[in-house]
């Protein structure tokens, strides 16, 4: 061994084995139960949408990396795959492939790459893609089909939240049973229907410490408090907090969307404010807004505050403010 072969670097010389691709692939692994559930409930439609979204995201990412003269290795960091998966999971099963592809291009192009790629985007890319579709193609984005397991033929079909909000479900006694919300045997976006599969994936992410536990907890707490207050005051009119937690996109939002590291705060206090804020805004939209569901907009809304939250919630440094 010759002397000048030693590595020269600044300390520390020990490093944890976790890395960006490992984190990304852990997120992908955590989505396996929800993807499986979507395939089970929506069969071929799920497969088509999942494949087209993931493929489009990868192609768009590669195109932009090439345009920006960036090394192509970051195509394999897993982040574009996650965006594709999450976007597909938030689409109605009946959506056409063309629209899914448009959404996926928007997610990567406008949601991520125009900001500078991985790490620099302000808004959750998958939700940017979805928000674009929701605005441009509102009818297609709110047309629902029943899961294959229900074996019913119907022209119009409502999601549990739509049913609650626009069909007067509580008074008519047609509120979706919690059991169906838990297993996923209901209408809705591809990946949001099975609470059980989402909780499984979320627990995996928590146990691997990939996501910040404060975010799902904060969202659940504030949503429970908000919807719980109205429910206690008038259970004839308002659904229970448990219904709100299990229905719609709340769990996929709380475990997989709001927890996106890039678009959530880095300070502990900022994270709490962000998470509690999301829960409140969801409650506001669901109870008083023009939509039945509010998870997407509330996350995007709070994403916008993240830079400010980071700036104004700097933790107190050890010894700061103590007199010398």
């Amino acid at each position, binding site marked *: *061994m010759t*002397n*000048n*072969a*030693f*590595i*020269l*670097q*600044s*300390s*520390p*010389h*020990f*490093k*944890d084995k*976790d*890395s*960006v691709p*490992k*984190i990304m692939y852990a997120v992908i692994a955590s989505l396996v139960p929800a993807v499986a559930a979507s395939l089970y409930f929506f069969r071929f439609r799920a497969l088509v949408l999942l494949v087209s979204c993931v493929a489009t995201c990868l192609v768009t990412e590669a195109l932009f990396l090439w345009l920006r003269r960036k090394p192509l*290795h*970051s195509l394999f*960091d897993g982040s574009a795959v996650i965006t594709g998966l999450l976007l597909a999971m938030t689409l109605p099963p009946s959506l056409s492939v063309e629209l899914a592809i448009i959404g996926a291009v928007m997610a990567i192009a406008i949601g991520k790459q125009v900001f*500078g*790629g*991985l*790490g*620099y985007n302000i808004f959750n890319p998958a939700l940017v893609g979805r928000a674009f579709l929701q605005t441009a193609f509102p009818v297609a984005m709110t047309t629902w089909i029943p899961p294959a397991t229900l074996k019913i033929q119907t022209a119009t079909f409502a999601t549990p939240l739509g049913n609650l909000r626009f069909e007067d479900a509580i008074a008519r006694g047609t509120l979706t049973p919690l059991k169906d919300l838990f297993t996923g045997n209901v209408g809705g976006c591809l990946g949001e229907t099975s609470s059980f599969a989402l909780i499984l994936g979320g627990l995996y992410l928590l146990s691997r410490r990939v996501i*910040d536990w404060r975010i799902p907890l904060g969202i659940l707490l504030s949503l429970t408090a908000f919807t719980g207050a109205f429910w206690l005051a008038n259970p004839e009119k308002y659904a229970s907090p448990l219904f709100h937690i299990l229905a719609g996109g709340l769990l996929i939002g709380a475990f997989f969307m709001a927890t996106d*590291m*890039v*678009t*959530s*705060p*880095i*300070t*502990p206090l900022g*994270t709490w404010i962000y998470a509690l804020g999301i829960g409140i805004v969801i409650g506001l939209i669901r109870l008083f807004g023009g939509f039945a569901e509010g998870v997407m907009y509330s996350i995007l809304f709070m994403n916008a505050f993240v830079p400010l939250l*980071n700036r104004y919630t*700097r*933790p*107190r*440094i*050890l*010894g*700061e*403010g*103590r*007199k*010398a």
Partner: protein
Amino acid sequence: MSTKTFPHGIHPPEFKDLTADKGIESLSPPEKVMIPLLQHFGKPAKPLVQKGDEVLLGQKIGEGQTLFSASVHSSVSGKVISVDNYDHPGGTPVPTVSITNDGQDNPFSEKKETKDPFSFSPEEIRQKVREAGVVGMGGAAFPTAVKLSPPKDKPIEILIINGCECEPLLTSDYRLMLEAPEDILKGAELARIATGAKRIIVGIEDNKKKAHEIFREKIQSFDFDGEVALLKTKYPQGAEKNLIYALLRRQVPTGGLPFDVGVVVQNVGTAKAIWEAVSEGKPLYERVISVSGQGINEPKNILVRIGTPFKNAVEFCGGLKEDVDILVMGGPMMGIVQWSLDVPVVKGTSGILAWAAPRPGLEYPCIRCGRCVDNCPMTLVPTQLARYVKFDDMSAAEKWGVQDCVECGCCQYVCPSKIPLVHWMRVGKNRIIALKQKKSA
């Protein structure tokens, strides 16, 4: 008994079993020593010898020039062959006295102290510590006499003896605690007298239970007010400000010193050096180091003379393995990489480590995961600081506390994007110092 700790921090792999059970062996003095005149935090010492001079073991060869400086002594008897710049493990060459060893170890004759060491006044203790060139032996090498001189308006209540040794791989402090607990406690008592502290707390991590037991037993025979505390094994438990917080729940003010909260912290090795300096007038010319890591054939703890080339120490431990590609002085978290085995052991050398390092992984953009924030023992926001420094926004970096960074490396350890965060902290600190010098000039 409950273990104490501080918030945040990390748990790197320890690898202490490589050397923990290896008793301290003495390395025979080399044929030639290179003794740098700067082995401490502060100004270099002024050379007192020149080429051709005969020197004796323990003879002062460099005089500390200011308060923040320390004297340097010969670690062998022999002949000075040069006083010139030489490579230093700190990275930059410094004025160094090279001495050929005559193999006699003829001591520098000074009348032996006969007085009871515990009857010395605080000033006499400080004087002897300064004369012996004692510096902090945990790694930072801050002149010990300065740490024993609290300002008059800051009464010292507690002396903490730091036996955490929280860096992975190092076990030299642990061996000292097992093999010389009395000397450490006697040195602690002298430091207590010098600082006027009322109590002594010895802090030991719970991966060193044996040392903890020995100290609990030995401290009984001392009549000072003392306590041996068990701390959770966590890095950086031994960082001064975190240790003070863990033991006393006191926060050293930003930009302040432990003096400000009535505390002085001394490392166990330093305590032993204080005892030897005051009781025997022995200058700091040798120390115990861990030579360890998976790249060392026979990892050991060894007592070496200051100025011994790394090469001699490594060869005494069976040499380097074939696949070694990183050589570090100090611990793996805060140590300094070396490019050569020719550099000398200095007073602040706690270990010589070598291993086969994985190639540095690709650096990814920050994905804002916040792990650096969640693990920083100073509760800084490292990724934000690095960004401010990168974009040269020094006022923001200063406001967000870049100067409070202790460079422990927790942030970079946990960073999944492999961003050299500590490097950016250092750049930031240096730039702020440069800006301030420019302003005042």
